[in-house]
Structure formats: C-alpha cells, structure tokens
C-alpha cells in the first residue's frame, strides 16, 4: 500500500510540474496568436481572446502598398537559402579533403578551424562594418551572404568531417583500385553516404541566417533590404506598442512554418550536435 501511495504522490507532483511548465511555455505563444486577431493597433487593448476577432492585420501584411512584410519574408528566404546552398557546397569540399587526404598544412588548417569556430563571427563586428563600408557591400544581400557563409564554414566543417571519418576508407580505396578518379569517388561514393550530415549542415545554415539579428542590423540600411528579424524589430521599436497587433500577426507567420520545420527535423538537430560534439 505504501509503495502505491508513494507512486501516486510522485506521479501527481510530476504532472503538476509538467502542467505549470506547459502553461508557462504556451501562454506567451497563445498570447501572440490572440493579439494578432485583435482589432485595433495598440498593445494596451489587446486581449488573448479578442471580442471581435479580425484578420485585418494579416491582410495588411499581405498588402504590399501598406507594408514591406512580404519583401522582408522574401529577403529572408533568399538570404537563408543561398547561404545554405553555398555553405553546403564549400563545407562538403573542405570536410572531405580534411577527412580523406593527408597533406602538408592539414593539421594547422584543422587547428585554425577549431579556434575560428569558437569565436562568433560577429566578434569582428566593427571590422565587418568598416570593411563593408570600404568595399561598398553595406546594404547588399551579397555582403550579408558572404559573411554568413564564411562564418558557417569552420564549425560545420568540423561537424561534417567528424561524420565522414566514420565512413570506412576501404570503400574509396577499393573504388580507387577499380580506377575511379578523385571527383568520382567524392560524388558517387562518399556524398551519397553522407546525406544525413549534409541534411544537418543544410538545416543549421538555413536556420542560422533566418534567426540572425546582429549582422543583418549592422549591414542592412534600407527598409526594402531588411530581413525579417530586422524588419520586425523596426516595426515594434519605433513607437513601442503602436503597431503591436500587426507585429503579432507577422510573428505568427514566421513562427509557425519555422516551428513546423524545426519540429520535424528536431531529432537530426540533436543527433548532429551530439555526433559532432561541437557547439550549439
């Protein structure tokens, strides 16, 4: 009997903790969703369950004459996708060389990557800003993409190299004996086996720029070049609260697709991070 009671108490307490946490987690999220359907613009009048719900804010966001939201969305998608593509290409090439070849300078190269991946690339914020000014890359997406791709290389190279090291070398050696060239081994033998880690790197390099605020806010000047993070901040920062409900609608439209993408690939994130054992 005593055992049973103990178990009952334990489970009840556990469920209580879980319930409290669920409320804490879900409340802010539901609150934004609620706000986005509120009539009026201000933060002060918004209620979680609005009296006369309206889609007006969503309509406003989709109206290009009234808001730049769609442009920002497009910019974010563009920058993130291009960053992802270039990063995956460069990272695969680099990681493959480090994993499979023994060449002069390899150890120094790996050490350099190891140290660089520890310094966040916005540490050189001032330099990036000044250099962009000098090269005319301020307020261009090209400049932003270059910085993102360059910053993504060290960490993701380590991640992918770690995975490639686990693919048996006998495979490419036997292909070599059969007369396959360097490129052929890379494209037809190693890359197909490396698909899981390529997916992880692609996810990281897509989500990273999408959520980045600091570099985008340093480099982008004009409103029509903004990415979502900078644009949304701009929307609420000017006069806080005055356009809050529009901001809420904008947030919902970003959060929902990203959260779905994230939840469906979540286990890759975790496995990618633990396999590479590097950083979050």
């Amino acid at each position: 009997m005593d055992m049973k009671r103990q178990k009952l108490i334990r489970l009840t307490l556990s469920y209580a903790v879980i319930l409290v946490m669920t409320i804490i987690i879900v409340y802010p999220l539901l609150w934004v969703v609620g706000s986005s359907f509120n009539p009026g613009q201000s933060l002060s009048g918004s209620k979680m369950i609005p009296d006369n719900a309206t889609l007006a804010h969503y309509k406003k966001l989709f109206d290009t004459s009234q808001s730049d939201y769609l442009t920002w969305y497009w910019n974010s998608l563009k920058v993130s996708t291009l960053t992802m593509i270039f990063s995956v290409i460069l990272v695969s090439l680099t990681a493959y060389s480090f994993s499979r070849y023994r060449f002069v300078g390899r150890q120094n190269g790996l050490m350099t990557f190891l140290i660089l991946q520890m310094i966040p690339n916005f540490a050189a914020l001032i330099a990036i800003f000044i250099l962009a000014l000098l090269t005319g890359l301020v307020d261009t997406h090209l400049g932003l993409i270059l910085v993102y791709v360059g910053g993504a290389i060290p960490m993701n190279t380590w991640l992918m190299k770690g995975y490639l090291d686990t693919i048996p070398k006998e495979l490419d050696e036997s292909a070599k004996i059969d007369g396959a060239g360097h490129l052929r081994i890379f494209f037809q033998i190693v890359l197909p086996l490396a698909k899981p880690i390529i997916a992880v790197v692609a996810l990281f390099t897509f989500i990273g720029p999408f959520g980045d605020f600091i570099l985008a806010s340093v480099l982008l000047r004009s409103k029509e070049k903004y990415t979502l993070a900078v644009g949304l901040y701009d929307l609420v920062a000017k006069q806080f609260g005055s356009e809050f409900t529009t901001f809420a609608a904008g947030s919902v439209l970003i959060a929902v697709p990203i959260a779905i993408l994230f939840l469906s690939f979540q286990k890759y994130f975790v496995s990618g991070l633990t396999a590479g054992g590097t950083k979050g």
Partner: protein
Amino acid sequence: METPMYQSNHRKVALGLSIIPGFGQLYNRQYVKGISFFILAASFLIVFKDLLNMGWWGLFTLGEVVGRDHSIFLLVEGILAVIVSVFGLGFYAFNLRDAYKNGQKRDLGLKISSLREQYRALVDNGFPYLMISPGFLLLVFVVIFPLIFVVLLAFTNYDLYHSPPAKLVDWVGFQNFIDLVKLDLWRKTFINVLAWTIVWTFGATTLQIALGIFLAIIVNQKDLKGKAIIRTIFILPWAVPAFVTILVFSGMFNESFGVINKTILASLGIGPIEWMTDPFWTKVALILIQTWLGFPFVFAMTTGVLQAIPNELYEAATVDGASSWQKFTKITLPLVLYATAPILITQYTFNFNNFTIIYLFNGGGPAVSGQNAGATDILISWIYRLTMTSAQYSKAAAITLLLSLVVVSVALWQFRRTKSFKEEDMM
C-alpha cells in the same frame, strides 16, 4: 649530412640557385617546372609590387599627409600585403624545398621523375588543396581578415575625432587598454559591464541547464503517460525563432500596457513592477526569459542521454537495495553530466555573447548615469553600441580583443578535456 652515400653536391647547388625561383629546378634539368616556377615568381612580383610596397609602408605609418593618405584604407592594404606576403613566402619555401629534394635524389643517384610523373603527382597532391581553396579563401577574407583588422584596430586611436579622410589615425600602442583601466568613465563602465556579463552568463545558463535536466528526468519516468506530446510542448520555445519570442516578451513585460503587470500580477494583487526602467528588474526579466528560451535545448540533449542509459544499471542498483535518490545521484546525474558536458559549456559561451536577447528586449537599457553603457549591456552589446552609435572604433576593438581571449581560452580548455581530441588520426 656526412653520409658517404652522396656522390655529388647537386642538392646544395640546386638550393643555392633556387634563391631565384626556378633556377634550382632548371639545374636539376626539370625545365618545364623551372620555367613555370620562374614565371610564377616574376608575375607575383610584378602584380603585387605596388600593393606590397604601399601596404607595408601604410601598415607602419598609417599615412603621413592629411588628405592624401586615408589611414583605414592603408591599414586594409597593409593587411592584404601581409596575407599576400605569407602566400608568397609559402611558395618560395616550397620552391627551395623542391630544389633541395630533387638535388638530393640526384646525389643519391636516383632518377628524377619525368614530366608525366610530375603532372600525376601534382594532380594527386594538389587535389585536396584545390578542394579546400574556395572555402579557405572565403574564410580568409570574411573571417580571418576582419579578425586581424580588429586586433590591429585595438592599437590605434580610430574614433569619431580621428576619422579619415579629415584626420589621420595613429598607432597608440596599449593606450586603449590603459584607458579602459585608468579613465574613470571607462573603468566604471567596463567593471559594471563585465560584472553583469559574468552574472548574466552564469545565472541564466545555470538556470536553463538545471531546469532542462530536471524536466527531462521528470518526463523520462517510466510510468508517466503522454511522453511524446509533453516532449513536443517542451521543445516549442526552441522551435520558435528567438527574435520573435524576445520581441513578444518585451511586449508582455511592457510596464504600462504589458500583460504581466496588467493582468497576471494585478490578479495576484501585486503592484506594477518596473521591468523596463529599473535595472534590477530588467535583469531579472532577462534571466527569466533566457531560461524560458534555453532550457529546451538542454532538455532535448538530456532526454537523448537518458534514453541511452541501459535499464540493467537501475535493476542492479535495486537488487543492491539503492534508494531512488541514490540511483539518481550515483547513476543518472553523473552519466548525464558526463555525456553533455562539452555541449553544456558551449551554452555558457553562447550566453556570454548572447547579443540578441539583450538588444531586442530593452536595447541594453535602462540608461545609467556616469557610464557609456546601459545597465543590462553585456560586453558584446556594449561593443555594438560603441561601434554603431558613438563611433568609438578603437575602444570597441580593444574590448573585442579581451572578449575573444576569454572565449578562446574557455573553448580551448574545454576541447582539451573532450575525448575526441585524443582520438587517433583525428588531427
């Protein structure tokens, strides 16, 4: 060197002749190689002559005549000159080594490889370099170049009052670092910002780790129902982009209109709290929000580890009469901490540089009199403020240098401890 095997002195002659690139190879009768080496070296000198000349001069002087010389352009050219010089010296060393090696082969009476063999060797040995070079070049210009630039900038007086083209920038040695310690305004700000950065890093990170591990263990109990749905809910704060949630929270914490003061605290009978204007409460709010944002990551990691712990361990412990608490402290906790330690440490370095939350929540504010950073500015957001609003570039660079030293030493210490470093053939 006194080995009797050598029948001649070709290696030394070839090495000596190679002081002019290519000549040693010509001496070794590798004509095509020799000529291409010579052409490469000559064109390198012709193409980069001006850059090297200007760059090295500019790097040392940072310009001498106001109006004609732009110090920052000169600094950039100087770094470029250094990078080009490094590549050039690398090639030069390769040329010397190649001449010596082939001369040695001749001395030993070995045959020197033919043009065809040289070509094959070039393709085989050159392939990894070819693969790495695009990524490496981008890295040099986008990451390494700016880092060198920041390091150098920290030793200049580049700010609003020494701004080209109207003024020249000068080398000032360690003056910026001395100012940070000696000038009252800077010292006070630096100490306050550093103190809060440390409190913030340890407070927020430790809380999110503790909460994440605690919840993972609760949810992992065998007889608990609905694990899948609970786990999905607990991951949600990680899934929603952080910049969205932080902006939402800054609306919720708004002092006059926010739902926290107006609805939640009011219903509990607590008067409005100054979340945005009182430094203490802003800090509390920031730590709470970061805990909310950060625990799901630790939760997911820990859940992964917990599921991998074999059940036999617990069964054996039960047979030996261990209590639940003993099982927890002797089996669960050590295993979880051991497996996640490297990733947990990166959480600390992440928060140390967590600019997004500080800036988006309250812009580093509220303002504090007598210092040039807000009350909740951490080092990285202070650097941002100095760069973007007051153009204190050199001071910002000096602080960046200090910050990077901290991050790199923590990270190096961590990597020396992780086992992957000791793995054979890892490096």
